[in-house]
């Protein structure tokens, strides 16, 4: 798995955001569409694509897309 593939999968998380603007360093909380419900879509996407269970704490402690990616890698 690599981080660029991971970013592509965020099309399942966001509806209105242009995925091509995202980079590993993007702070997901700064994206206008981000809220507690998009967080659920992120958990669903990670469960589906990586069979990894993200917790609320995992998301709260992360800032960038790469932080989430690292958590998934460590849980794999």
């Amino acid at each position: 798995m690599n981080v660029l593939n991971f970013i592509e999968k965020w099309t399942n998380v966001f509806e209105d955001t242009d995925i091509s603007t995202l980079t590993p360093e993007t702070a997901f909380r700064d994206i206008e569409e981000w809220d507690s419900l998009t967080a659920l879509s992120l958990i669903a996407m990670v469960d589906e694509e990586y069979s990894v269970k993200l917790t609320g704490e995992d998301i709260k402690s992360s800032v960038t897309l790469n932080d989430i990616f690292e958590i998934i890698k460590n849980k794999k």
Partner: protein
Amino acid sequence: MATFSIKNIAIKGISGCVPKKKSLNRDLTLMSIEEIEKFIDATGVEERRVVDENSCTSDLCFYAAEKLISDLKWDKEEIEILVFVSQTADYILPVTSAILQDRLGLSKECIAFDVPLGCSGYVYGISIISSMMNATGLKKGLLLAGDTISKIVSNNDKSTLPLFGDAGSATAFEYDINADKMYFELGTDGGGKDTIIVKDGGSRNKTNENSFEYIEYEKGIKRNSCQLVLEGMDVFSFGISQAPKSINTLLEKFELEKDTIDFFVFHQANLMMNKMIVKKLKLPNEKVPYSLKNFGNTSSATIPITIVSELKEKVLNKEANILMCGFGVGLSWGSMLINKCKMESLNLIEI
């Protein structure tokens, strides 16, 4: 792993009871119009029923039970066990089941006790009452399950208020040697106790002068320590992994064929979570009913409310194979399958 089967017990009917008063999520001022629409899209909940100040869960269950007993033309003297599943009991003690035994005019020889489970409570309740009846030969039993979560949510908490509705239910059980076996898979993960919790008011943290202090955890989430905490992300993560796992375990253990099951009735947690579970299990949509839109998440009453509100025409007086699955507070979960279940009474009443 707690997988087991119970024989000789038939489910004869179910009654649901909800308060007349509707609370519409689109009327809430707690969130912006955009936020409300997004919330409705994700959770599926448009309106909920809410009890008035003077009513509580036992009232809803009482009327549900009266309706069911009269529909089935049961003699109250014959009811030998009553189990009340709820997290919103009348008092800290005594048990609400005792109050209901007396109020319903049941025999003093009736066994009555409470089971304080929530989302998994209906399936747990069925396993408890059925196994006791099978072990003892008791002939008739009543399972009363429901909650009035409106009593314990903060009106300023957007993570709980728009999601939960109030409802009660009654389910009738009969000892019947011709009944098909029921199959169960039950489990617990208390490591997740903090994901859905009311922190103060029990013996661990007795109600104190700080219990009623309102704290704003984030914008739109303000509550005190006697009110319900719901860590949505953790519950979501738990539900989408545990519910499919529980059902798959049940099917594998007893070599049950998914295709022979007519309906899959899930605890109505929220639409997004339920859809994800259904997708993972690859279930056909027409076999999965929802009652979230009109009633919200009614805790241990979601499964019976969904059956009486969405499946009545399809299963009343007909043999049906029904799988039920509840998951949540505890954390706790339970799945069960009842084959050739022929219910003679299915009703939803309002008070």
